[in-house]
């Protein structure tokens, strides 16, 4: 998984060689159900992404390809979009979710960073964190499992 340092700059979404951008766009493309995406900038640069034939096109309604580990009770908290996972707000000191921590339904468990924009990673159901899969700085795809929770007993 790629790591990026915020301080190095070069995170403008117009940088078409950026693997994060390509990954992000690919994720969106998959999710939208389209097979092909072509972008041309004002200065004439172009990017074309074509999904490999035969690859299943994930629609949001069907997007539950991974069987979460940890038993049938486990609930996967997923990335809302492709980007860089951050386990805390850049202005905050500590991580939002750690193993053993309880999350309420709708609670913030981290962020996916797309350039300067932060998207929330939220738990849909209340539960205790049993496994944190993504580490801060990881490049994650749309729908990737960030962490697993289990309903408190």
């Amino acid at each position: 998984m790629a790591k990026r340092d915020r301080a190095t700059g070069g995170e403008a979404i117009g940088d078409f060689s950026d693997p994060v951008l390509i990954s992000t766009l690919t994720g969106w493309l998959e999710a939208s159900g389209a097979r092909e995406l072509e972008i041309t900038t004002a200065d004439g640069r172009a990017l074309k992404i074509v999904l490999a034939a035969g690859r299943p096109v994930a629609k949001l309604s069907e997007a539950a390809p991974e069987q979460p580990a940890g038993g049938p009770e486990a609930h996967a908290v997923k990335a809302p979009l492709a980007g860089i996972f951050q386990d805390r707000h850049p202005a905050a000191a500590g991580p939002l979710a750690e193993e053993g921590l309880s999350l309420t339904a709708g609670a913030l468990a981290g962020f996916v960073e797309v350039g300067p924009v932060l998207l929330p990673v939220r738990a849909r159901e209340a539960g205790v964190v049993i496994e944190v899969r993504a580490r801060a700085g990881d490049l994650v795809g749309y729908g990737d499992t960030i962490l697993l929770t289990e309903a408190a007993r």
Partner: protein
Amino acid sequence: MIEIAATGPLNTIQDLGRPGYRNVGVTGCGAMDPLALTIGNILVGNAPEAAGIEVQTFPFRLRFSERSAFAVTGADCRAKLDGVDLPPWWAAEAEAGQVLELFPPLKDARTYFSLAGGVDVAPVMGSRSTSLRGGFGGLDGRVLAAGDRLETGAATPLFLPKDGYGVVPPSIALKDVFSSADGGALVIRALPAGEHDLFGADAERFWTQPWKISARSDRTGYRLSGDPIHPIETVEMRSHGVVPGVVQVPPAGEPIVQMSDANTAGGYPKIAGVIEADLWRLGQARIGSLLRFVPATHGEAKAVEKALAAYVEDVRRTARLVAGALAAFA
């Protein structure tokens, strides 16, 4: 529409200001941290000139009368929507009846509330900014009070992510450009101004010593306290136009930095002028905090402006892309 439920004494409606009327004595006004207001407007899909609320006294509480996208940027005021924490520099959607609460920030001075469509008050001389001194603009030229109801302008149809979204705060995203504290003092870049050399050896002390922002500081200007500096000779200045950021030295020797509500004319000797791209940081500096001036050139000022503009443009473009992508998923 929104209704102000509770507010401190000095909170006003501001946009990016009322330029172009200094020649008739009208102050520019506008947000003390225009960067924060700009980002807030972008996050809710507003035009750059939309007005928001500048909150500098807390707690501040408002109620949404209808469903509305809003953003809270600037000083991290531990905002809560119906009791649920919002991250700093964040936009979300509120349902009718929900209450947004802003609490005293632990650092920085001013928080900006933006809402989709902007706060709709009648523009006066091309701006919705409140001119407290002139008694016009904003809401009848006055500070906000509990019970005030503010109309919302027409919002651009925009998909605001259901779970909300935010930005990496500029102080972090641009930490290489806006170096943080120097021994506890905020570093502010400034250009030497007309009477700089008149201060002789004291000019050196202007740049080297840390200055404390005194309690007699507000949107009009910051009075600094420190070891006084004096010109070698007293000059009788003729009144001339001034701009925010100009650092004047009155006879007592403690500098005043003019800010958003500054008088349009002045006559004290000027030792320096803060570069425009650093004014937003000064706008977030708190009473009692320290700052130090470092000399800059026009070239350096321009480089900082470019970095700032690139961040704003990156936010604008990425926010649009992300909103579009999530809309496609929904």
